[in-house]
């Protein structure tokens, strides 16, 4: 029941939010997302450390097709639900008062939270697909209505890109459904059985179908070209939602659906997809070197980081998978923090152009410190949240094949280069025309950034808090194939 409660509550608040008087809109949305967070924190803290799905609810939905409304959480799901419910209140709180049509904006954010939770708890292939597509609707409108100058073209491209991927997934799911034993069903276990029973050839083809869907969402090189445009043109909260949580749908899809369904498909293609992922790590990282727009630089850095996560997961060993999961959390936290910092800078100076900034530390030491800590998380300094993940991911890849591990390890150098460059040019040095009258963080901005900083350090110092939750599920996954 707890899961149903989460879903219904977020959905209901999204609806009610539309009719709340405008001046209470922010408070209403924030408080209701906070309630969701507190509730899921309770679930997380009391979560039993086993590999079994908890809180399973199973209603027959469309009987004739064997479609069920079946949800449940294991250690992997609960972490991602936590990530979603932790970040959503922060994202809502970060909305500026000046935003036009605030009620619709908040409702869309809450609606999206509901869909994301749904994706992470679905135990029925069809239900998963429904939530997967529903999640696209609010972000589409957020980008289209609140985006930047070129939003119509960019949003269309984003939409078609991901929809194309989704269609491949739908075809794949239906194909598997038709191969489920006995009465056809979309149940997760039935789909696993169906996938594993397929010939190697069929598995390989389906593997690429699902790869397209999940690879576009994450995105994996070379399916990523929608991403930098969308990230830089979407309103900040949209970018945070996309990069912080939504791209984890793709990674989650790999772990929960694609790999367990198509183990042979993975083992035959692991070489290729890993090299693709690794190529993306270097490619996007190197492009980030010379980006002039802070948001775009972060967009490419996100592609680079996600490439590492993908490579670790495809390596399919304990280190790679556990590293992937903890890195999903820390990447989500870091990237939301970083995009918010950019938003703050842009709201003060009217620009995100790195060359016209500088000297912010002189005016805003608090911002400079917070930015530095989150950046250190992003470059994976030990005792920050990026390190356990990056270390485990590189180890996982290295275990799979030494040379790949060594190549992907370059990320620790590349990441430091673009991040420190950006930090130096925007924060250090003398003030510029744009930053002359820069003011330090407001209380509201601190309220968003301090929880993020705390998490950066908490995950870095006590990664076991999170690793141990997903461990049984990962071991089961590894053992089941």
């Amino acid at each position, binding site marked *: 029941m707890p899961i149903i409660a989460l879903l219904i509550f977020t959905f209901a608040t999204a609806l009610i939010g539309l009719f709340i008087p405008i001046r209470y809109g922010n408070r209403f949305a924030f408080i209701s997302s906070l309630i969701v967070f507190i509730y899921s924190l309770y679930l997380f803290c009391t979560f039993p450390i086993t590999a079994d799905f908890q809180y399973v609810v199973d209603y027959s939905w469309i009987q004739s097709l064997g479609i069920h409304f079946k949800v449940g959480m294991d250690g992997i799901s609960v972490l991602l639900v936590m990530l979603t419910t932790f970040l959503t209140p922060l994202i809502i709180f970060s909305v500026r008062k000046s935003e036009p049509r605030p009620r619709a904006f908040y409702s869309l954010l809450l609606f999206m939270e509901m869909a994301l939770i749904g994706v992470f708890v679905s135990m029925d292939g069809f239900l998963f697909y429904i939530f997967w597509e529903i999640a696209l609707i609010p972000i589409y409108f957020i980008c289209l209505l609140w985006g930047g100058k070129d939003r119509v073209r960019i949003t269309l491209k984003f939409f*078609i*890109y991901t929809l194309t991927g989704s269609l491949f997934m739908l075809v794949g799911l239906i194909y598997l459904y038709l191969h489920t034993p006995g009465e056809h069903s979309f149940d997760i276990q039935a789909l696993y059985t169906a996938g594993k029973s397929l010939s190697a050839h069929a598995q390989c083809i389906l593997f690429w179908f699902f790869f397209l869907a999940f690879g576009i969402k994450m995105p994996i090189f*070379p399916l990523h*070209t929608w991403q930098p445009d969308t990230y830089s043109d979407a309103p900040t909260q949209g970018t945070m939602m996309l990069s912080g949580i939504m791209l984890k749908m793709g990674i989650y899809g790999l772990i929960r659906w694609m790999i367990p369904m198509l183990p042979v498909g993975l083992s035959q293609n692991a070489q290729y997809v890993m090299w693709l992922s690794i190529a993306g790590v270097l*490619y996007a990282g*190197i*492009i*980030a*070197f*010379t*980006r002039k727009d802070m948001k775009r630089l972060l967009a490419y850095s996100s592609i680079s980081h996600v490439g590492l996560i993908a490579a670790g997961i495809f390596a399919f060993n*304990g*280190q790679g998978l*556990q*590293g992937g999961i903890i890195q999903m959390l820390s990447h989500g936290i870091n990237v939301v923090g970083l995009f918010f910092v950019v938003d703050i800078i842009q709201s003060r100076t009217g620009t995100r152009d790195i060359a016209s900034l500088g*000297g912010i*530390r*002189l005016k805003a030491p608090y911002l400079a410190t917070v930015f530095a800590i989150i950046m*250190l998380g992003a470059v994976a*300094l*030990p*005792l920050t949240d990026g390190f*356990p993940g990056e*270390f*485990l991911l*590189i*180890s996982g890849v*290295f*275990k799979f094949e030494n040379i790949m*591990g*060594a190549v992907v*390890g*370059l990320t*620790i*150098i590349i990441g*430091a*280069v673009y991040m*420190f*460059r950006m930090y*130096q040019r925007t924060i*250090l*040095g*003398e003030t510029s025309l744009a930053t002359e009258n820069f003011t330090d963080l407001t209380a509201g901005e601190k309220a968003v950034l301090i929880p993020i900083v705390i998490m950066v350090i908490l995950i870095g*110092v*006590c*990664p*076991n808090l999170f*690793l*141990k939750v997903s*461990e049984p599920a990962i071991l089961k996954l590894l053992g089941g194939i």
Partner: protein
Amino acid sequence: MLQYAALIPFFPLAGFIILGLLNKRLPKNLAAVIACGMLLISFGLALGMFMNISGQSQEVQLAPWINVGSFSASFTFLLDPLSSIFLMIITGVGFLIHVYSIGYMHDDEKHNIFFAYLNLFVFFMLVLVMASSYLLMFVGWEGVGLCSYLLIGFWFKNKAYNDAAKKAFIMNRIGDLGFLLGIILLFITFGSSDYHTIFTKANGFMSGDAMITTITLLLFVGAMGKSAQIPLYTWLPDAMAGPTPVSALIHAATMVTAGIYMVARSGILYALSPISMYVVALVGVVTAVFAATIALTQNDIKKVLAYSTVSQLGYMFLGLGVGAFSASVFHVMTHAFFKALLFLCAGSVIHGLAGEQDIRHMGGLRKKLPITFITFLIGTLAIAGIPPFAGFFSKDEILIHAYSSNKLFWALGMLGSMMTAFYMFRLLFLTFSGTYRGDSHKVHPHESPKVMTVPLIILAILSTIGGFVGVPESLGGTSQISKFLDPVFKPAQAKMMMVEGSGGVSEMMLMGITITVVLISIFAAWYMYVSRKSVPVSEGTKLPFFTKLSYHNFYVDEIYSALITKPLDKISELLKNIIENKVIDGVVNASGKVTEWVSGLMRFVQTGNVDFYLLAMVVGIALIIFLKLM
């Protein structure tokens, strides 16, 4: 009792947290007292541990950290003689430098944050040497790198300083990648990164094992970054952008010796790999000589000392590479004394001359800064290797071991010693003797306050007598330090085929040669800079070929920039403009266009004209019938 030593790092950490959070709300004096006090407590504990350790080794487990299958590490500290010596150096010399900073940084508006960073640095440095596993060592390793970044770029308004800080961090990261891969290989090979497990299992490996060689070479890449060896040394001279106490603490006495600590700690692994040992020695000796040749022509007082540090670190690696582990650790200790002293003296000079660092504008400071002069002289004698000052014993022991292992290494080491004596006395003479060459209307050279000179005096005493803990048996000593470290290095030494003795030539004779060569160098320096009063030419004058190369660091920075930095930026632009925009997005947009085009074609078919549909139908049926009949 011993386990209380595990608390040592947490005092500086507490200092950092207090100063970091309260920052400007604390009065300057109180902040300084907190920072120094924390170090003093740590020093007290370290001293207690040093007294009680007597060859034991004990692990203190604090908390778990990362657990994923066999890849696990915990916050566990190892207390043994090797870590104990480093703890003494870090907290002891660290404390003196903290005290000195009270005077040096007194008027800086970011005074409190400076002390916060210093305390944070000490915390990470202590974690580095107290860790009981490679992964935890890596925490300290990267942590000190971060503090080094923060402190080099402490005056962050200046772009050049920021560049230097960034360069240090990134170059270190290059080394760190090697270190990290080494750690991963250790995990894969030994199922753990704990020293205890690894060193026990390593006994089962044959000498020359390929895996051990790979691991040790990867670890050494890390050491090359942190300890500024060729080819990753260029960040250290630039790091002099930081305040001088930082140069003394981080870039001379402690952090840069982390690489030596790491190789010494992994002694048994290196002992199993003759190739790695040879590489370590070779890189060390080449760096020692190369950096010395650069130091010969530098005119910035701190740059001379920086290249000298690179060179001395090279000697330490030479020692490690020829199996003289305890001699290298000994040299780490004496070097910490005399190099910290020299840097702090340099700081005192810079302080007294209102920021002047160019030795061409100094001279004649002997009278004006008498304490600084005497202590600088002692430091110079120590680094040049004049007995009985500290540097003599440690460097000599390295050279003797080098001789018995490889005569060429010894000869190069000797050459380096010669240059060391020359450039150090050149520096001494140009700074302190002769007459003042600066603008005496604007600058009034003066001695520094007590809070700065007392640390100088203490360090000078240590630089004078510090060598006596390692007087070799051939000089009637007992070499206490190597006895003290023996429990740590014995297993490694047992794995090596040590060539004992020095092949007919007695140790006394080698010492004699060293001292003679050094004295000749000093005389040459005296002749040039005191007797003939020559002063290095001013900027822009045409220099002889070799001098020019040396003065410009053999253009290594320019070469790196042309070969790596600039091409990478070009590639970045190229990837974005060509591959990203034209190729990948080109394909994506083309597929969109193709869809549009196909649908455009289809539109022609759907004309809405019934005649056309009928015609198409008839033709279609005819075709089907025709094909069927075929």
